[in-house]
């Protein structure tokens, strides 16, 4: 790549994501710890919600999404803690690139991480709670995708902004959960609709469309506010 030509938006996104992936692949710290945490979450909830060997109704849907939310918060915190420790976020901000591209690059990295977690956790929940999560794989996959995107979009923005704040560890969940509760509600209700003996497809599709709408609104907001909010 010639030094005179500035990389395009997509190229920048790929550069940022690739950097994060390479660093992560070397130690695999965040991936392993987040995965284990998600599995532990599911287990703890299993002990909480299984009565006489059978799970309470709709428990599977709730547990799946709570595990994603909790492990997502953890992953966000860890990812940006790494940036903070080496002060690399400031370096990234100084680099001559589109700020929104930096945001999207970080977001894609977090999404890939959460996708890896969901690939493990979803079958686990389906198994442990005898829930037919794969009866409608396309719809289920779309619900997971749009929900994760919504959660990660808000989370990446907040985690990036908290890098220099005090009490950042506890403030991330405090800020993130109220804003993303609509995502969790939609995800859980949509998944629960799919888990019914007679899967309620129109309801699931309705929640899916709400998630899509939510994603569009909040990614747009995040792209708008990332640069002015991150610069002094």
């Amino acid at each position: 790549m010639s030094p005179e030509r500035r990389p395009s938006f997509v190229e920048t996104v790929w550069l940022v994501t690739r950097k994060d992936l390479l660093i992560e692949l070397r130690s695999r710290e965040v991936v392993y710890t987040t995965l284990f945490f998600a599995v532990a979450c599911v287990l703890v909830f299993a002990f909480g919600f299984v009565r006489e060997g059978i799970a309470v109704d709709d428990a599977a849907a709730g547990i799946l999404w709570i595990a994603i939310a909790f492990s997502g918060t953890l992953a966000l915190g860890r990812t940006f803690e790494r940036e903070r420790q080496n002060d690399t976020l400031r370096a990234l901000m100084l680099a001559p690139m589109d700020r929104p591209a930096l945001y999207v690059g970080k977001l894609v990295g977090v999404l890939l991480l959460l996708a890896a977690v969901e690939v493990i956790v979803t079958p686990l929940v389906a198994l442990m709670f005898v829930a037919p999560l794969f009866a409608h794989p396309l719809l289920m996959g779309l619900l997971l995708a749009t929900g994760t995107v919504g959660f990660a979009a808000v989370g990446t923005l907040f985690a990036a902004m908290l890098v220099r704040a005090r009490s950042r560890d506890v403030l991330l969940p405090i800020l993130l959960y109220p804003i993303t509760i609509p995502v969790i509600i939609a995800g859980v209700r949509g998944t629960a609709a799919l888990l019914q003996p007679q899967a309620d497809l129109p309801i699931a599709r309705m929640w899916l469309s709400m998630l899509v709408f939510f994603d569009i609104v909040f990614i747009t907001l995040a792209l708008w506010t990332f640069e002015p909010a991150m610069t002094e």
Partner: protein
Amino acid sequence: MKKLFTPLLIVTAALFAYAPFAIQNAPYESTMGLVQKIFYFHVPAWIAMFLAAMVCGIAGAIVIFAGRKDADRVALAAAELAVVFGLMGLITGPLWGRKAWGVWWQWDARLTSALVMWLVFVAYLLLRKYGGAGSEKLSAVLALFGMANVPFVYWSVNVWRTVHPKTSVVMTLEPSMGIPFLLCSLAFVGLFAVLLAARVRLETVRASVDELYLSLED
């Protein structure tokens, strides 16, 4: 703007003084009886809370995109008011609901979303208090996102079945109920404006103190 403060204060005080009489004279609602009268304070409190949320969000947007410090003071004041009015709504609602529905709380869309909205502004205040320097911009982003959640609140009650009266109830009120309701709503909006002005003044004075301290050190 400052000249409006005293007349507004007088009008609001008058409305609040008259309100108990207006509420007293309003007819009983057919199914809920006396307890429905909480409606005259409950709904205006939520109206004021949403108003505060909007003001906070808009002020936050100005802080982020125009970088103005005085907008930040308004945002902080509005967030505090959102928490106070939201608390009013959250306490009066269950008191009404206990009698009208038989339960203190329902996990339906409207109540849940309103509670979430309230939590966003509590989180705002926590961030401002414990986030250290430079949390003005982050809290402005939070307020903006909180404001963006407001449509989801209103939309959810019309999409998902709920025992909470639909928003269209207000439009179909008879005049005998509608007028006291309007009076109370105006009273609360006036109260919001008065409290906002007072709270912003507090922040302005604090900002002057900070500035003077800085020049003292020079």
